[in-house]
């Protein structure tokens, strides 16, 4: 049983628990669902889906860093048709809400994937990953430019009535500009952050460690950066936020909630501790009980509103 005080509404998606599996580390869900207790999970965001299958990057794709993980999977995925036929039926039976992360090389691909997923049984929302390189605009990521962000989110919005989250890239000068563009284009919520761009070098071969040279940094190392961007986005937009980046404990999750997130997602944390979600849930419940707070929602943005709130209120 999840404490009813933990339920939240994330841009139209009713979640029994504010804890989600972030897109990517959790794959298409069934591997973890078979092995761990997922009863504390409010929702699963599956790995990014494109129209046609994407092959992904050459190995090695992973490297451990100080309190972090560098990955360059390259958005490998089996494509829309395969997902709908093979993965979705397995997932639709699962307890947690299902959100599908979508990717594309251009705006048409994003729109086509969104259209293909709309109206299907078992899908509760979409998350648009705008960190993909925009091949028609010289390879710069959609999510680093407000105009491109507005265009791609708008195109997806026109294809679907599903609740729409937009997943922001942290590799930008000012996250609030991108956040506002996504909101203006019709997003129902924002997810942040995606990975920070980084790399490592093998000093023996004197080559980059990852097959793709660059990768994305995640895990506890990035938590302070993620938290600040959630704080800033919370000041910039009215739609709810899904916070993520380095969460492995209830204390981490609470920091995101207090910075302004409605719910939080865990990615790399599953590698560190597969039972992470049950542990975080327990910690959240204990915190609410200890401070006599009836609903987690009371804490949303608490740190931006001047600190300690009265538990009873």
């Amino acid at each position, binding site marked *: 049983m999840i404490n009813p005080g933990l339920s939240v509404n994330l841009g139209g998606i009713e979640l029994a628990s504010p804890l989600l599996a972030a897109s990517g580390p959790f794959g298409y869900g069934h591997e973890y669902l078979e092995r761990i207790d997922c009863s504390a999970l409010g929702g699963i965001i599956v*790995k990014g889906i494109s129209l046609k299958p994407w092959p992904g990057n050459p190995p090695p794709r992973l490297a451990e860093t100080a309190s972090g993980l560098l990955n360059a999977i390259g958005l490998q995925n089996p494509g829309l048709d395969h997902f709908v036929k093979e993965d979705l039926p397995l997932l639709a039976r699962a307890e947690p809400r299902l959100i599908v992360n979508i990717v594309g090389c251009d705006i048409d691909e994003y729109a086509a994937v969104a259209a293909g997923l709309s109206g299907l049984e078992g899908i509760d929302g979409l998350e648009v990953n705008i960190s993909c390189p925009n091949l028609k605009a010289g390879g710069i990521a959609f999510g680093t430019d407000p105009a491109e962000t507005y265009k791609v989110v708008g195109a997806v919005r026109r294809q679907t009535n599903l609740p729409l989250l937009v997943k922001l890239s942290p590799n930008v000068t000012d996250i609030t500009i991108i956040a506002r563009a996504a909101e203006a284009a019709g997003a129902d919520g924002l997810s942040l952050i995606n990975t920070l761009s980084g790399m490592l070098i093998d000093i023996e071969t004197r080559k980059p460690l990852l097959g793709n040279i660059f990768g994305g940094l995640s895990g506890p190392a990035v938590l302070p950066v993620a938290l600040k961007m959630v704080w800033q986005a919370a000041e910039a937009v009215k739609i709810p936020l899904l916070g993520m980046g380095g969460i492995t404990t209830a204390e981490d999750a609470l920091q995101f909630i207090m910075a302004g997130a409605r719910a939080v997602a865990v990615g790399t944390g599953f590698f560190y501790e597969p039972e992470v979600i049950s542990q975080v849930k327990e910690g959240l419940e204990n915190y609410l009980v200890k401070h006599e707070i009836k609903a987690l929602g009371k804490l949303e943005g608490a740190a931006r509103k001047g600190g300690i709130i009265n538990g009873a209120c």
Partner: protein
Amino acid sequence: MVTEKQAIAPGYCRLSFKAPHIAGTAYPGQFVMVYMNSGYRHLLPRPFSIFTRNRDKEEVSLLFAVKGQGTELMASAEVGSLWKISGPLGSGFPALPEGSLLVAGGIGLAPLAFLAASIEKPRTLIYGARTASQLICPPGVLDLPNLEVIEVTEDGTRGERGTAADLLLGLLPGPPALFACGPGPMLRAVKTLCLHSGTPAWFSVEEKMACGIGACLGCAVQTPKGYSRVCREGPVFSAEEVFNND
């Protein structure tokens, strides 16, 4: 829980764990993930092939080389300390036909020792390393019925002189199947010999891992059909599937 520790040679260690589920269900070629007891110092668990399994004592043991911080930590584990390990993971070796050849290079012995122990039919293990001090199999493990062990070192300090591949030249064709694990260059040479001689072969390969269960797509290796996951489709692949484009 760590039930036994064997410091074998400098830089090598064997740890036994009480793990009823793993000991009960594992088959040769499968691996486990060992979680580091170090906070954020090591976010990722480390993968290790199952070296031996004892169903009665509900134990498995791992044989490993100390490579970096994680294996160093493991080598300093104390008997009785609690370590989280998960498994059995991955797809192991296919059944071993009579007369099979097993080829182990260095620490690549781990999965092959388990494979060798899985049947009692006649079979041959070529166990090679650069030098005698790297032939680190703990005494007794390879004393198996009907198993012929041929040791080989590049510098001739123990067994035959040469590489495992050199030895194979004289043994192929013939055996109905070959199973190998070891460093990349060795596996590449073995692959060439197997293809030439028409010997079906299976290799256990390595790649960096995060989830270990097929979810994250981090452990991809290139195969003719695209990328495969070492932790799910592997770690055992047929010779045709791997080492094609490098």
